């Protein structure tokens, strides 16, 4: 295969697919996030305090539940995108009433707001290429349905911390450990979940405490630098107590013990005892227990995806084994009692799509089935299939070059 066939054509084809998808699909998360981001350019540095003090006057009354760096980073991006956005962008952003999405320029808003995600998506693809030295893994990332759905249909910004976690692992490969910790720290400052990867990235022989603490310090430095100005006000802490992820990973318990942290701990111990094995095998196992034991939000699926792809790409059989898992995952997502997680994605095409009967309601009203039970059963099926996949991972365990 020529270079063009192996890289350029898949890259351009992936770009075309994204170009087509970007303007057509919508989810209210992107609107609610950018609603808050707009206040940065109005001079409000403490978004938590601003929302708390102005809630009755705001068009959208939800709190800002993300970290400060998210607000500054995407607020700045929105400011940079402003010259490219149509004149009615802020009208749409502040319209949460009747006809809130009856804007012809919604296609344009969706396309332009997702351009930064496209940038980080392709950078992540190149990082995966550099991590694996394989066009196969590169193509797996470019054409997998999970990342296409999360980034361009849901329009969620999780691809940005995903990029920084991949960069962190790439820097480990290059033996730039301090920068690796710093990159992970930036990811943690955007969204807290990369804390799950911290032990797998910073713990390596020789286990010198001084080095470990220095890496922990570097990994927490961006977070500390960005949240310290807000820690002394109750507004920030109010937004953050009862984080969705923390609650959900503690949900499933056995004999009063939360299962996910316990299994995570065992996987971490196994990783430390079997060094110098690859982190990707163990992170892929963490992904499977995460899927099984957490009532995940769809956008959370992308967090582990690069590591999983890096682990499975050399075995086509392993790749195909994931297809039933993806089917079950999408079944679980589409049975969520939320119209915006099915028909509502086509709101940009016609705002009346949101009024169509969701799969959840269809099961109840048309077939007299309990949709919550079926959703629960699909999650159980994910758990069972994840156990099967975990055994397949163990059988195919290998070391990366």
């Amino acid at each position: 295969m020529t270079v063009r066939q192996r890289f350029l054509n898949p890259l351009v084809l992936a770009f075309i697919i994204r170009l087509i998808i970007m303007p057509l699909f919508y989810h209210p998360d992107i609107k609610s996030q950018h609603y808050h981001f707009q206040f940065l350019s109005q001079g409000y540095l403490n978004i938590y305090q601003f929302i708390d003090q102005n809630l009755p006057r705001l068009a959208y009354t939800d709190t800002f539940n993300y970290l400060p760096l998210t607000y500054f980073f995407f607020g700045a991006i929105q400011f940079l995108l402003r010259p490219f956005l149509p004149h009615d962008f802020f009208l749409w952003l502040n319209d949460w009433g009747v006809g809130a999405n009856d804007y012809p320029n919604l296609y344009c808003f969706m396309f332009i707001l997702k351009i930064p995600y496209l940038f980080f998506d392709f950078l992540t693809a190149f990082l995966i290429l550099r991590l694996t030295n394989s066009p196969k893994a590169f193509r797996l990332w470019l054409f997998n349905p999970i990342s296409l759905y999360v980034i361009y249909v849901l329009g969620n910004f999780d691809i940005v911390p995903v990029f920084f976690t991949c960069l962190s692992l790439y820097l480990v490969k290059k033996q730039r450990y301090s920068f690796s910790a710093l990159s992970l720290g930036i990811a943690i400052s955007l969204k807290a979940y990369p804390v799950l990867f911290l032990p797998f990235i910073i713990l390596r022989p020789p286990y010198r405490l001084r080095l470990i603490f220095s890496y922990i310090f570097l990994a927490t430095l961006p977070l500390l630098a960005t949240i310290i100005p807000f820690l002394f006000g109750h507004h920030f802490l109010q937004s953050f107590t009862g984080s969705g992820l923390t609650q959900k990973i503690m949900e499933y318990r056995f004999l009063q013990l939360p299962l996910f942290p316990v299994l995570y701990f065992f996987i971490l111990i196994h990783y430390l005892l079997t060094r110098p094995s690859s982190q990707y095998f163990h992170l892929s196992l963490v992904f499977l227990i995460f899927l099984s034991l957490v009532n995940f939000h769809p956008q959370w699926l992308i967090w582990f995806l690069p590591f999983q792809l890096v682990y499975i790409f050399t075995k086509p059989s392993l790749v195909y084994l994931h297809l039933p898992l993806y089917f079950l995952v999408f079944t679980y997502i589409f049975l969520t009692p939320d119209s915006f997680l099915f028909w509502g994605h086509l709101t940009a095409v016609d705002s009346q799509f949101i009024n169509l009967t969701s799969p959840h309601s269809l099961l109840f009203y048309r077939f007299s089935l309990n949709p919550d039970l079926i959703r629960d059963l699909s999650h159980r099926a994910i758990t069972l299939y994840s156990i099967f996949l975990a055994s397949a991972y163990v059988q195919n365990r290998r070391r990366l070059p």
Partner: protein
Amino acid sequence: MFKIAAVFLSQLIFFTIILFLAPALFIRQRVYDLHEEAAVQLPLSPSSTYSRPIDVTTPNLNSISFFLKNPNLKNQQTLVLSVFNQSGVIRQSTFSGRNVGDPSWLTYKFDPISGSPSHLTVEISSLGQSVDSLYLLANKSGQPVYRLTHKSTDLRQSLNQSAANQTAKLGSLSRPFIVFYFIILITADLFLFVPINIKPQNKAVNRLKQPE
């Protein structure tokens, strides 16, 4: 040439399906909802009647819903929902208070009323004996909150409506965006087929393994 045409055609078909066919096939009735705040509770006592004039600009009105409240779900009175025009009653049906949740929309579906624009009056009245056990939710002005749906009678009408909606929408879309978008898309499509000389002795290429 054939391959480029095939790519363009496939994209055109995809856009046609998403923009025109999907709304026509799946959106068979359109909801008209003012999203008014339910600020006032009007008691539906025996022989009470509440009405609201509406201007129907879209044909084939096929349902009207009122927002009701049935505390403790104990109400059993008979409710009458009616639609009037200048001539008199054109649609009417009775419902039991047992069908009302707390709160819930009470929907009266009927054969589509053809023709628009028209001035109609929608009315809800109570024939029951219970006093103050059912409430009609109204806006700040005391007018009942309501919701309407309009049905497309056949696929052809649905397609026409979808085409009209999308054409109007695309016509209102930012011109620079449309031009920029299609230039980028067509350029990317052409890039797939335009021959490009790439020097094989590239450092990055040399670092990569050959595929299995």
